[in-house]
């Protein structure tokens, strides 16, 4: 080996050591980027040369710059991302829902129900005081208001979830586009390289994109070794060479609001399940908040129906001169239990009492509602014609399907002993209107004239026997509530929600803890230690100085040689 060869070896070493310093410097420069993956310069001895009998090394060559990343760990992080963000989205829905309910605050629905029954208890204590009826009706209005308020809070929660779904889909689609665009660039850049990780910056960007995408939807990433990656969602591909499938949204109606449904372009597979922020948000919107709405509706409709069943058989301080039902039938010629009423009646009868207002004399007539399964069954028109058969009473079906009953001049009509539920079904002499948490209200005839509040059952103004039944509404068990009482049902629902929320929280913490542990492992392996990098720099610096000294030695040798 000649001096020139030695000089060239030393020269290449200088190059490589300065590259090493450059790599370490780049690492230090990116030390604060959490997505940055530590790089290191890989060195190999150059091919040795044979000189006579000697085989002498010819210095060092740089094989390339390698990202220090654990691919297996990365796959686990993608999976853990889906679990953790899905659970976290559900947990957040639970917490928001619980906050909306204001449980334990005195403003929640359970307290409102207590206040309603409390006000009816006060009415029972002294029904003869006009203010008692007024207050009971007002409390009814407040109760209905608090139900609809709660419902609209939950609707808002669901609408918010909807826009979140929308923005997640937009974000996912732009990530998909980004990744699809990065794939060919990385392939092109690395085509000359050997380590398949040379395009560090671009790869960092793609790792960041994949990481975020795996939080939104549970993806699988397949690295096919050419620099590009395939991304799949379940059995559907999102990114494969030459094709990109985005997420698509479509709107459908659900529980009174429009909801965004998300599918994969091409196959139309819906996004569902428990993994990923998107599925978690959809689950929260449809199952957690939506499920609560179902329970709320069950609770509300039971209260409306039970309250109206009792109220419609009682009497106020005086009768009605005219009363119009609040529930519409679709077809007045259809049997009443098949006429599209929210609370269909059953076989039985009710009584109308036509009271002469000047003498106070009442005339009772029984209206039969024959629905025992033996045809012909009673229709609304059948009820109307029976009512028209009662002296001093006229009845009709309005053009929009409501029952209207008018008493003749000087007469009023009262109702009693309805064992068929027909009056409650048609909304005649009822307290609440509506059939769900959206439309519950108090009958406008009562708000206009609280003396119509049916506190009694045929006695004088001091008769509070019907109000006593209404005050006990919370203790009534209802088949529609699975046999549970109205008061307990809501408490059970809220307790069950708290329980579910609490377990989701625990699950979420578990997932997050696991993800954190993985991320911490990743940080430990791929993160930048400035001390390490400085040592690297110092090491390369020393090597550089030594190589320079070697050159100077060779130079002296040359000088000596040339002086001969």
């Amino acid at each position, binding site marked *: 080996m000649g001096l020139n060869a030695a000089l060239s070896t030393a020269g290449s070493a200088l190059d490589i050591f300065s590259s090493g310093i450059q790599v370490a410097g780049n690492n230090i420069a990116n*030390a604060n980027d*959490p997505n940055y993956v530590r790089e290191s310069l890989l060195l190999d001895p150059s091919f040795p040369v044979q000189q006579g009998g000697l085989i002498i090394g010819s210095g060092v060559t740089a094989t390339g710059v390698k990202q220090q990343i654990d691919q297996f760990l990365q796959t686990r992080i993608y999976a853990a991302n889906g679990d953790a963000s899905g659970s976290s989205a559900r947990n957040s829905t*639970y*917490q928001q829902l*619980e906050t909306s309910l204001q449980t*334990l605050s005195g403003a929640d629905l*359970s*307290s409102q129900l*207590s206040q309603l*029954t*409390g006000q009816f*208890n*006060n009415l*029972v*204590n002294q*029904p*003869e005081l006009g203010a008692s009826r007024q207050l009971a009706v007002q409390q009814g209005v407040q109760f209905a208001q608090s139900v609809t308020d709660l419902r609209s809070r939950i609707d808002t929660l669901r609408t918010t979830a909807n826009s979140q779904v929308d923005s997640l889909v937009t974000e996912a689609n732009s990530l998909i586009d980004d990744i699809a665009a990065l794939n060919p660039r990385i392939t092109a850049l690395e085509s000359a390289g050997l380590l398949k990780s040379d395009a560090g910056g671009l790869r960092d960007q793609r790792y960041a994109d994949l990481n975020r995408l795996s939080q939104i939807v549970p993806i699988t990433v397949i690295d096919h070794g050419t620099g590009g990656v395939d991304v799949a969602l379940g059995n559907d591909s999102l990114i494969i060479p030459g094709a990109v499938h985005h997420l698509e949204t479509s709107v459908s109606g659900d529980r009174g609001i429009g909801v965004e449904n998300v599918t994969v372009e091409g196959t139309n597979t819906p996004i569902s399940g428990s993994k990923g922020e998107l599925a978690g948000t959809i689950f929260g919107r449809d199952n957690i908040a939506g499920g609560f709405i179902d329970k709320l509706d069950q609770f509300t409709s039971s209260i409306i129906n039970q309250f109206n069943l009792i109220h419609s058989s009682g009497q106020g301080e005086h009768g009605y001169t005219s009363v119009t039902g609040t529930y519409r039938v679709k077809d007045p010629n259809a049997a009443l239990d098949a006429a599209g009423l929210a609370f269909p009646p059953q*076989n*039985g*009868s009710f009584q109308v009492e036509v009271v002469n207002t000047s*003498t*106070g*004399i009442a*005339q*009772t*007539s*029984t209206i039969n509602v*024959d629905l*025992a*399964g033996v045809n012909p069954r009673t229709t609304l028109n059948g009820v109307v014609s029976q009512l028209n058969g009662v002296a001093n009473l006229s009845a009709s079906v309005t053009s929009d399907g409501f029952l209207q009953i008018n008493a003749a001049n000087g007469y009023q009509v009262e109702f009693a002993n309805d*064992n*068929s539920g027909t009056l409650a079904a048609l909304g005649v002499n009822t307290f609440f209107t509506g059939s769900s948490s959206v439309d519950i209200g108090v009958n406008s005839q009562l708000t206009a004239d609280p003396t119509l509040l049916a506190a*009694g059952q045929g*006695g*004088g*103004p*001091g*008769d509070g026997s019907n109000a*006593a039944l209404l005050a006990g509404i919370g203790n009534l068990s209802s088949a529609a509530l699975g046999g549970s009482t109205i008061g307990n049902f809501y*408490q059970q629902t809220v*307790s069950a*929600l*708290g*329980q579910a*929320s*609490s377990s989701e929280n625990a699950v979420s913490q578990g997932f997050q*803890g696991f993800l*954190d*542990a993985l*991320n*911490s492992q990743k*940080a*430990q*392996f*791929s*993160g*930048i*230690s*400035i*001390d390490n990098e400085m040592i690297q720099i110092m090491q390369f610096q020393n090597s550089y100085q030594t190589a320079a000294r070697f050159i100077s030695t060779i130079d002296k040798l040359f000088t000596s040689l040339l002086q001969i």
Partner: protein
Amino acid sequence: MDIGPLLPGRMPNSLITQRLQAQMQDARFGMSQLETELSTGQKFQIPSEDPIDASHAIQLQSLLTQNTQLDSNVQASTSLLNATDSALASISGALNAAKGLDSSGVGNANTPEQKVSMAQEVQALIQEVVNTGNSTFGGRYLFGGSRNTTGPFSVTSTGAVLYSGDQQSLNNLVDVGLTQATNVDGNTALAALTPPVTSDINPALTLQTQLSALKAGQGVATGQISVTLSSPATTTTIDLSQAKTIGDVKNIIENALGAANVTVGINAAKNGISITPTAGTITIADPPGGSVASNLGIAGNALASINSGDLNPDLTLTTKLADLNGGAGIGATAGNGLLITNGSTQKVVDISSAVTVEDLLNLLKSPDLNLSVGINSAGNGLAISSRLSGADFSIGENNGQNATKLGIRTFTGSTLLSSLNYGQGIPVNGGQPLAITRRDGTVVNVDLSGSISVQDVINKINAVDPGNLVASLNAVGNGLSLVDNSGAGPLSVDTSALGTALGLAGTEPGNNPAVPLVGKDVNAQETGGTLDILVRLQKALETNDNATLTRLGGMIDDESTRVTGVRAALGARMQTLQNVDASLKNQNLQTQQALSNSKDADMATVLSELIARQTAFEATLRAAAQTMQLSLAQFL
């Protein structure tokens, strides 16, 4: 971020930073939570923070609200009952004063003039009791029943006192499952209504009869029955749970089995249902665990026809008069009706327009009659009372059978002699016979001893000369009538105590044997209450009626005892309220303790935990500050 264990190996700066950040965030979060607990005093803000305790708290809170409401109900009851009790005390006082006046009035110790001035004192007492009866508290007339927005007692122009309230108990809920009346109605307090005239008038079963009205109002629960016919041989399970009336039962059974195969109808006695197959026999049984067939009385094995027997339906407002008395009705009404005497009013009530019970009651509600009308508590008959205290009340016939068949005649064959003449009875066992001077001039002495009822008296008189000397109830009004065809002279009954007591004493001077000697009504009804006594006492003093004064003396004692009884019952109710109140307060305390246990933050624990966390946080900050300064660069 979770602060997990460190793996052996590198410690990149990014990891150190992440861990420091996580530690600080954790410490901050923990401290914020503790601060929230301190400021709200609650262990949790939403149920999921502690689901078990939260669900306890929710239940306890609702229990607490319920107890607060019950407590307010108890307070409302207590104040109303207290006011009622002081009013009743003044009634007792009035009765005592009346007793004194009555004692002085009996006999000749005082002159008639003195008695008239005593009567004026009674007049003042009447006004005092009427005022008491109209006492109000918190906007309520205490003694009006449910008609408590106007004064229930008023003095009529004839001096009688009218009670226009009702007899309803106004109940409120004072404890879970315990309702109690917050009032004493005027009839309970002052016996302001006459005891109701009533008897079982056996309404017939019809297709309209509600199943809930069967078996004296107990009703019949519905469900499934199993019916087997021999021809065509079938066994069918029939679901009667939708049935509400007898007509529904008929329709459902006939529909299930085929109207050609079976006929369901009302039985011959019109008190039950009969089920008859067209051919062969019928078996009706309850499915295992059921009892509908046996409750309806239609369980039977291989019978040609099944008869339920008497299902004893209740009387309702819509029951037709023609269906009373087992379907026999109430007799012809045209030209007949009821002769009602109430105080100064005497009126024939024409009931020919009445079809249903309600129609009849509406006719009787006519304001000039001053009656309280309704259906009796047993549900099997009418109940008619007079609202007037200090007046005589009776319901009699007007040539028909209407009053008797409606069960509301005040004087019938079964009326007990002991109840006649305001309960003073008839001296049938006094050794004196009833002396009747017949139209042929002969005098017959009828021995009435041992007679118990009016019918016994009639039977004994009729046994004297069967078919010729005939005693019967008056065709018009009440009382006994005698006809005698023995001759053409006058017919008379002696004015002995017995004859007078029976109301027969007197003479029919004519000579027509078909014209009866019409006796007087000796069974006038009276309320017997405080006001009745006072009004009668006033009149008796004014008219110096010693017999009545003597009778009233006993009545005042009875009435005092009765009012004392009412006050005792009221006292028992107030005692109940006190007990409930005490137990509610106790329960409230316990509930609040339990609620506090499950909901409230333990301040001592929270504070010491906060201090511990603060120390840990400070340590973390110090460590962080130092760790962050360490770098190789510092030492180069």
